[in-house]
C-alpha cells in the first residue's frame, strides 16, 4: 500500500473514502429511482419529507434501524447474518480497482517534525496489473452472498430465488467474459490504465494501410466494438439482477426471491450490494468502452488540461490536482448517466420469462460474442490496426 507510514495511511483513508462514497451513493440512487419511476409512471413519488422528498432516506434509515430482529425458525443463523455482510464486499473491492482520474502528485511536506513525500497517489483504490480479470473475478463473488442468503433463510422461496439468481448470474458471466475479448484483442492489455490511455484523442485507426482520422469523435472503444459494448451492457443488467432480468426477485412468483426473510438493515445491505454491482458494471463499461475519464471532446486531453493549469500559475501539485478533479468530473457525469440508464430501463421494459432469459444468454448472446471475437481478430489481422 505504500513505502512509509504516511503513504499507507493516505491510501487506507482513500480506500475507506471510496467505500463510503459507494455506500452514500445508494440513498441518492434510491431517491432517484423512486422519483424517476414515479415521473415515468405519471405519479409524484416521495415528496413529503424535506425538499423534493430528499430526506425520505433519512426517515427510511431510522425506520430500518428500529425494525425488530430475529432469525427465522428453520434458518442457519451464521449464514443468515453473513450473507448481507458479504453482499457489500464485491462491489466496493472491484470498484476500487477502476481508475477514476489521473494520479495526484503530493509535494514534500512536514508532519511530526519530519519531512515526508513526495508521493504519487493514484485516483483509484489500488492499481492491479490484471485489473480486468480482477474486477470480473471479484464481482462474480456476489453469487456466494445470494446462495448464503437463500440457504440461510430456511425458506423455499429464498432457496428457489437464490438458485435462479445464481444460475442466471453464471449464465451471463459467459457472455460478459466473452464480450470483452474484443477489447483485449484491440488493446493487448488487462490493465485499465493502459486501456483508458489508448482511448485518448480523436478517433484514429489504420485500415489496410490507410490512416483514417475522424476529428470530431473520441477514440472510444464503443466505436471499435459496438456489438461487444451492447452485449457487455446487457450482461451487466443480468449480473446485477436488475429488470428486465430480475428473475431472482420475481415478485409475482417468488415474492422477493432470496431476500424474502430479510428486513430492516440486513435488507438495506443487500440493496447497497445491488447498487454496488450497478456502479461496478457501469464503471467497467466506462473504462472499457466509453474512454474512462477522458472527455468526449477529443480536443481536451489531460495534457491540454495540464497546460492550462500551468498557465493559470499552479505548481506541479496544483496542476495534478486540477487535472485529476476535472477528469474525475467527466468520469462522474458518465457514471451518473449510465446509472440513470439502468433506472430508466428498469421502468421501461417488462420482465423476461425464465426460459427466455436462459435462451437469450446461452443461445443469443454467447454466439454473438463469439462471432464478435472472431470477426475482431480477423479485422485486426487484415487491417493491422
Amino acid at each position, binding site marked *: 500500500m505504500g513505502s512509509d507510514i504516511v503513504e499507507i495511511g493516505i491510501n487506507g483513508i482513500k480506500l475507506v473514502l471510496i467505500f463510503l462514497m459507494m455506500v452514500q451513493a445508494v440513498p441518492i440512487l434510491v431517491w432517484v429511482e423512486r422519483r424517476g419511476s414515479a415521473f415515468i409512471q405519471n405519479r409524484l413519488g416521495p415528496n413529503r419529507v424535506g425538499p423534493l422528498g430528499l430526506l425520505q432516506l433519512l426517515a427510511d434509515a431510522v425506520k430500518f434501524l428500529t425494525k425488530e430482529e430475529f432469525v427465522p425458525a428453520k434458518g442457519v443463523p451464521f449464514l443468515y447474518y453473513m450473507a448481507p455482510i458479504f453482499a457489500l464486499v464485491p462491489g466496493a473491492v472491484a470498484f476500487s480497482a477502476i481508475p477514476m482520474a489521473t494520479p495526484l502528485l503530493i509535494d514534500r511536506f512536514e508532519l511530526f517534525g519530519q519531512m515526508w513525500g513526495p508521493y504519487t497517489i493514484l485516483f483509484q483504490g489500488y492499481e492491479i496489473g490484471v485489473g480486468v480479470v480482477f474486477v470480473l473475478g471479484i464481482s462474480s463473488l456476489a453469487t456466494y452472498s445470494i446462495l448464503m442468503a437463500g440457504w440461510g433463510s430456511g425458506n423455499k422461496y429464498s432457496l428457489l430465488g437464490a438458485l435462479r439468481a445464481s444460475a442466471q448470474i453464471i449464465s451471463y458471466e459467459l457472455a460478459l467474459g466473452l464480450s470483452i475479448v474484443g477489447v*483485449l484483442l484491440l488493446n493487448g492489455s488487462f490493465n485499465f490504465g493502459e486501456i483508458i490511455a489508448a482511448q485518448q484523442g480523436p478517433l484514429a485507426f489504420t485500415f489496410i494501410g490507410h490512416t483514417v482520422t475522424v476529428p470530431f469523435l473520441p477514440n472510444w472503444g464503443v466505436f471499435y466494438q459496438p456489438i461487444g459494448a451492447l452485449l457487455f451492457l446487457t450482461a451487466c443488467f443480468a449480473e446485477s439482477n436488475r429488470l428486465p432480468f430480475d428473475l431472482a426477485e420475481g415478485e409475482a412468483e417468488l415474492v422477493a426471491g432470496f431476500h424474502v426473510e430479510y428486513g430492516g438493515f440486513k435488507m438495506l445491505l443487500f440493496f447497497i450490494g445491488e447498487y454496488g454491482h450497478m456502479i461496478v458494471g457501469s464503471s467497467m463499461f466506462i473504462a472499457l468502452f466509453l474512454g474512462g475519464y477522458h472527455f468526449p471532446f477529443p480536443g481536451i486531453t489531460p495534457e491540454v488540461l495540464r497546460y492550462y493549469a500551468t498557465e493559470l500559475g499552479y505548481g506541479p501539485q496544483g496542476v495534478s490536482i486540477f487535472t485529476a478533479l476535472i477528469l474525475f468530473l467527466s468520469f462522474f457525469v458518465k457514471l451518473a448517466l449510465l446509472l440513470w440508464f439502468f433506472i430508466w430501463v428498469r421502468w421501461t421494459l417488462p420482465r423476461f420469462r425464465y426460459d427466455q432469459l436462459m435462451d437469450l444468454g446461452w443461445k443469443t448472446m454467447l454466439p454473438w460474442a463469439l462471432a464478435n471475437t472472431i470477426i475482431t481478430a480477423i479485422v485486426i489481422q487484415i487491417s493491422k490496426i
Partner: protein
Amino acid sequence: MPLGGVIFLFIFISAFGALLLFIANRIGNRIKSVSDVKSAPYECGIPGIDKKDTKISVKFYLTAILFILFDIEIIFMYPWALTFKDFISNSMGWYSLLCMGFFLLVFIFGLVWEVKSKALEWE
C-alpha cells in the same frame, strides 16, 4: 503492493457491515419471545412442513456444469487475446488465428451439440 489494499478493504467492509448489523440489532425493537408462528418461514398462511431439502430441477445442476466448461474455455481465450498483437507484429497473425480457430471449432461444436441435445431447454 496492491494485495495489502485488497485485504484491508475486505476486512474493513466486513467489519463495517457487521458493526451496522450489530447496531441495528441493539437499537431495534426488542421482543420478549419469538413465537413459533412469528418465526416460521414465510408462507401464504398455511403451516410450513419441516422439509428444507426440497427437490430442485436438475437443470440448475446442468447449467452449473456447462458454465464451468464454457468459462474455462473462455478463460483460455484471454492469453491469446493478450498476445495476438505480438503475433501480428512478428507476422504470425494467421498462424495464431488458425491455432485459435481449432480451439474455437471445439467451442462452437460444444455449443451446437449442447443446444441440439436440448440441455438448455427450460420447460
